[in-house]
């Protein structure tokens, strides 16, 4: 296997990261709609769309800001280089930014109830699907693990077998999604499922 593993779409070879990130948003959203139809919602449709919009916009900004803060010296040195500044993002930054934006929006709309339970399982599945793209992108994605002698170590193209940490996270996230789905079907306090998602993600990281 040669990394990155390009995916053919007609005559064009698509970069796996773009393909799987797009898929993750689409599938995550469909799962959310399915969960909402089955479980109902504590919010009106209008308010829910504001919460969704805030989550996406907050995630976009948070993912970028935390990416810059991950290496602030480099970011400062390249502060006038648009090409550098536009590259890269952080999943944790996306989650923090999304959470902050949702809480701010809820405050403005005077919503006091917990609203994250419907997002928990779709988020876990979405991140897992995105990780397939990270794995197929290889070394350029910088999400691989440390070198290893274990038999399942993956050579991403530089002759060194490394832990496929993207696949570890993918397996963990699918297990987490299954657990969250089971949890949401049982009697629970409002907000517990999203708390469980955050704890599950934190435990893995």
């Amino acid at each position, binding site marked *: 296997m040669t990394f*990155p593993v*390009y995916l*053919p779409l007609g*005559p*064009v*070879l698509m*970069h796996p*990261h*773009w393909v799987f*990130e*797009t898929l993750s*948003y689409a599938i995550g959203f469909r799962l959310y*709609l399915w969960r*909402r*139809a089955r479980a109902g919602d504590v919010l009106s*449709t*209008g308010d*829910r*769309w*504001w919460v*969704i*919009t805030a989550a*996406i*916009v907050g*995630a*976009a900004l948070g*993912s*970028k800001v935390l*990416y810059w803060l991950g290496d602030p010296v480099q970011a400062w040195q390249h502060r006038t280089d*648009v*090409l550098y500044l*536009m*590259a*890269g*993002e952080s999943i944790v930054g*996306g989650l923090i930014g999304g959470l902050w934006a949702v809480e701010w929006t809820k405050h403005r709309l005077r919503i006091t109830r917990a609203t994250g339970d419907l997002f928990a399982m779709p988020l876990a599945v979405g991140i897992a699907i995105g990780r397939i793209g990270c794995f197929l*992108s290889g070394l*350029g*994605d910088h999400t691989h693990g440390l070198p290893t002698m274990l038999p399942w170590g993956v050579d991403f193209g530089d002759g060194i077998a490394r832990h496929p940490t993207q696949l570890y996270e993918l397996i963990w996230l699918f297990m987490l999604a299954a657990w969250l789905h089971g949890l949401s079907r049982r009697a629970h306090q409002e907000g517990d499922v999203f708390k469980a998602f955050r704890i599950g993600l934190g435990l893995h990281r």
Partner: protein
Amino acid sequence: MRLHGVGKGVVLGLMLHLLQIPLASLTYTTSLWVIGLSQLVYMVPAVLTCRWKRRPDEVKGLLIVAALTFLLNAACFGLFVMASNFGWIRIAG
């Protein structure tokens, strides 16, 4: 969940992205590389217009399209730049 107003905003946002074609020819494709930023040229006026016309659902749709475009651009931009530097970008056929 009804998509009416929000769906209209999403479709409007996607159609506005067609403006990237003339933008790309004006900027020698640079605007496409930074579509997350260059989209502000038409997204900001569109959002302000919808707000002014009191169409909050369309504002939401436009913001969702703009944020997803920014995310996808940020995620893939670095990889594409790296790919082009190392000759990884290939078009089959």
